[in-house]
């Protein structure tokens, strides 16, 4: 308290931002000292949430379904036909032919290395006994991709051509990126019933935005000079679009297609929670939920998904960069199309002729795989039996020293049975005074950011997210939003938090924020050092980069498999799954930021006699800070995205509500909870990006 008062005295001479920081600091300090649990009125929000809004949404959807039933039925039937038609074709095609065709395609696109990778991958799918399920998944993807392509491309062109359309499209894209995927599964199920159709449509909705974004980016970055060249050559607008703009944007559009196909696959896998279509995602989901008992199955089927993603990713990427590879310079002879077609026909005929034998081989090897799965299960159970104590210790440590304090605060988490001592009032006072004094000192030195960071971490671990007084949360978020994204956005953030409160999701939101914060903390602790190592050592970078590439391209579900196998279904598994997925951007951006520190600065530091460590701490990390912050921003968004999946293995809060909404076909509940999550993501995104921008700009393209 006393520290805060002294700093108030000197605050007259400080600038507005610092004064605001100090005011907030004092407010928060008082809040903490009053000890929320003695004054529950201060903790619980006076605005009682209600499900009126959710009910209204449900009413609206019901009305919509009633009115548009025939149209919805027709769409559903059409899509269903398409999926099942494609499924029939894929089932009928001999697997041998698909293996050979994919291998050949990979060889044509890139070379022998990719051919080997893709060939092995597809062969694995065929031999592991999950062939038909993979084909089911592919048939959904196969219908979703063209739809998403058409929608994504159309919207991208529209946005590039019309400024007014763009003003609508951009914010919609931002929102779509942050709405958790389950949230729109629920209304789709209500509208179109169970089966593959909601999955296909969700996949389209999920996959179109990255395409739109890339088309927009590509078309917008066509050099102005080329547009003028085109005008001066006397082109019609259509000629200009076809001959100049589209080819110029091609590279970016191909990147978009790559992202689109991967997103589509990812969503189709996620949509397996709906059920009603026997695809590979369903297989993994069911096996994963059984924990270590069916780990082998989950692993074998999970590998199929990973391989599907990797093959699709590498093939589309190879196609995107093909021009240089098959250009005149490589000297590879072009094989006439007719020959190629003839070759394919021969292979097809041969594979049909050999179908019986191939199928026998597949069945036989599938039996081996099943046996292998059982063996893996046994092995895992042995492993858990022998190392159970270690695993438990890891889990307990994380729960006691990280998760619990963050959730319910040190005051409740520090108990003799957990920490070995009681957190007496005297100790609490000392703790609080230390935090406040440290904050005041930092603020007085003018280091507002460090001060607010220390204060929030100190107070949050003191009372925990769950017991955070609602108005402290409001004040803190508003202040951050105002500081880093302007007062207009501060108002928006306020409105968003109000909406969360009014729909009755405040507690859920606090829980989601808590679990994400814990995950992000772990990501920071592990990811930043890894990024630094990768920046300093080419070997580490060479190992991490392909791992990161793969981690980013595989569907989110896969991350649940190891988490559940080792730690069963609980909060800690959720944390592990989130960290596995969300850590990637942090590693990447840290490495990127450090590797792009201007060489002159590094040389100057060297010339001034900095030791490598000093150079890292005083020059490189501060210069790389904007990049690292952007990575952190991505990590936050990834964590929120994964949270929704992590519900399946023990996360709670908003994500759980979304999931319940999906399970009970309660669209209103699912959508309000989903939007609440989107709001959290939007606020975090804007604040972090604003902060990164205020430190300087970095351009990072993926």
């Amino acid at each position, binding site marked *: 308290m006393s520290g805060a008062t002294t700093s108030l005295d000197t605050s007259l001479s400080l600038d507005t931002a610092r004064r605001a920081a100090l005011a907030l600091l004092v407010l928060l300090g008082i809040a903490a000292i009053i000890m929320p649990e003695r004054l529950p009125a201060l903790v619980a929000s006076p605005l009682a949430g209600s499900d009126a809004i959710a009910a209204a949404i449900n009413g609206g959807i019901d009305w919509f379904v009633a009115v548009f039933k025939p149209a919805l039925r027709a769409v559903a039937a059409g899509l269903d036909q398409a999926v099942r038609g494609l499924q029939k074709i894929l089932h009928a095609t001999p697997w041998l032919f698909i293996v050979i065709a994919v291998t050949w395609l990979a060889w044509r696109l890139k070379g022998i290395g990719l051919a080997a990778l893709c060939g092995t991958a597809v062969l694995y799918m065929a031999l592991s006994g999950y062939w038909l399920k993979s084909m089911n998944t592919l048939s959904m993807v196969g219908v979703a991709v063209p739809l998403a392509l058409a929608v994504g491309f159309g919207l991208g062109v529209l946005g590039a051509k019309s400024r007014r359309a763009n003003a609508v499209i951009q914010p919609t894209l931002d929102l779509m990126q942050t709405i958790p995927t389950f949230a729109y599964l629920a209304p789709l199920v209500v509208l179109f019933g169970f089966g593959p159709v909601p999955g296909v449509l969700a996949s389209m909705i999920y996959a179109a935005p990255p395409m739109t974004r890339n088309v927009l980016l590509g078309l917008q970055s066509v050099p102005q*000079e080329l547009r*003028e060249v085109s005008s*001066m*050559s006397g*082109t019609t607008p259509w000629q200009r679009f076809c001959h100049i703009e589209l*080819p110029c944007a091609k590279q970016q559009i191909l990147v978009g297609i790559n992202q689109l196909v991967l997103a589509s696959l990812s969503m189709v896998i996620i949509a397996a929670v709906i059920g009603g279509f026997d695809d590979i995602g369903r297989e993994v989901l069911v096996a994963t939920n059984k924990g270590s008992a069916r780990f082998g199955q989950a692993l074998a089927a999970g590998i199929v998904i990973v391989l599907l993603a990797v093959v699709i990713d590498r093939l589309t990427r190879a196609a995107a960069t093909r021009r240089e590879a098959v250009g005149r310079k490589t000297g590879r002879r072009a094989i006439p199309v007719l020959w190629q077609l003839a070759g394919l026909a021969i292979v097809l005929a041969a594979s049909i002729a050999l179908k019986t034998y191939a199928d026998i081989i597949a069945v036989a090897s599938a039996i081996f795989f099943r046996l292998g799965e059982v063996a893996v299960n046994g092995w895992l159970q042995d492993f858990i039996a022998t190392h159970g104590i270690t695993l438990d210790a890891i889990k307990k440590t994380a729960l006691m020293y990280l998760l619990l304090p963050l959730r319910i605060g040190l005051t409740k988490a520090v108990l003799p049975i957990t920490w070995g001592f009681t957190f007496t009032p005297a100790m609490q006072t000392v703790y609080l005074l230390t935090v406040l004094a440290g904050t005041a000192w930092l603020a007085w030195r003018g280091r507002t950011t460090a001060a607010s960071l220390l204060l929030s971490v100190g107070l949050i671990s003191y009372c925990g997210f769950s017991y955070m007084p609602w108005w402290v949360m409001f004040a803190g978020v508003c202040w951050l939003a105002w500081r880093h994204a302007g007062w207009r956005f501060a108002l928006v953030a306020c409105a968003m938090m109000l909406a969360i409160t009014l729909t009755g999701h405040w507690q859920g939101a606090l829980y989601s924020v808590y679990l994400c914060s814990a995950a992000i903390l772990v990501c920071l602790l592990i990811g930043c050092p890894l990024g630094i190592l990768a920046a300093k050592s080419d070997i580490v970078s060479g190992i991490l980069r392909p791992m990161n590439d793969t981690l980013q391209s595989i569907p989110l579900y896969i991350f649940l498999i190891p988490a559940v196998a080792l730690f069963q279904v609980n909060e800690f598994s959720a944390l592990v799954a989130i960290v596995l997925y969300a850590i990637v951007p942090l590693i990447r951006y840290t490495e990127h930021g450090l590797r792009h520190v201007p060489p002159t600065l590094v040389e100057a530091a060297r010339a001034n006699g900095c030791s490598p460590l000093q150079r890292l701490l005083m020059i490189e990390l501060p210069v790389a800070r904007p990049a690292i912050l952007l990575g952190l921003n991505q990590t936050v968004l990834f964590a929120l995205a994964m949270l929704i999946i992590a519900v399946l293995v023990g996360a709670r809060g908003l994500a759980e509500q979304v999931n319940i909404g999906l399970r009970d076909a309660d669209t209103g509940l699912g959508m309000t909870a989903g939007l609440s999550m989107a709001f959290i993501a939007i606020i975090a995104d804007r604040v972090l990006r604003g902060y990164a921008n205020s430190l300087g700009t970095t351009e990072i393209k993926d």
Partner: protein
Amino acid sequence: MPEASRTEPKIRCHGLWKVFGDAAETACARRGGGTAIEEALAGTDAIIGASDVNLEIAPGELFVIMGLSGSGKSTVLRCIAQLQRPSAGEVWLDDANLASMPEAQLMDIRRHRMGMVFQNFGLVPHFTALQNIAFPLKVRGEPAEQCAAKANEMLDLVGLNGRGDAYPSELSGGQQQRVGIARSLAVDPEVWLLDEPFSALDPLIRKQLQDELLELQARLQKTILFVTHDFSEAVRLADRIAIMRDGRIIQQGRAAELLMNPADDYVSRFVGDVSRLQVLKLGDIMQPSGRAVSGAPKMPASLSIEDMLLTTGGDVSTINVIDSNGRVTGRIDRAQAIETVRNATPGQTG
């Protein structure tokens, strides 16, 4: 310029204005040009790109616009090409006002009568050199073999035969700009617009391309509007020069006129860098007279003073100046010539 006064101008800008900013643009359009605009814009944050520009360019003339960066050169050029629509004023090409012409008709004019060369070459990266050159022909719907033939012809014209299949990224800067020139000439335009075409090139290549441009012009006789910020380039190329500042044309005339009678300090600072002995020609400083001085050497009016001084010894005091037909048109006193040059050099020892 005697030629210009005799024939109808090919291009004529009249009261051309270009202001940037939506509000300013409407204000400008409503006033319909004239100095009233300046009052209307005073105090607003409008950026003026071109203000009250009046130009007349004769057929076959090589007209250079110069000025410092941001003075509005490109703006004027692009307003003439209608890449930017002028805020007010008229742009006449022969007897058609481009400023009020609908896009469709403009497209037709660009397909047949205008060619433009861009500062950063503006080559389409996914086209080969030949495809770039053929592009304007292709979009106006000419059959493929005709396009190819014409493109090859153009490639020869700029001395790039054999490099037609190269992509822009495989060509040097000088070669890229040759492709740009070939493309702009592919449609046989009457009017040729060049916006700092050589600024991105190194001095030697620049000089070489300037020479080639002059050669081409001697053969093709286009009406050329050439933008540069380099006065020595302007002097080498131009029939007439206009100097711009803050969107206005400060002065226009032949290089020698700018040198000898600069309108203000800005112009004299601009022209200060070039050697007067090279720019001023005998015709610029001679005393007109039809009678030859006997015994004196005869020299053409287009010879620079420097060349005259270098080729004549100190013993020659008077020179007969002849025109291109060999007729004597005037005479020069050697000592007096040096005096004239010294007087035309502002700020230097006089």
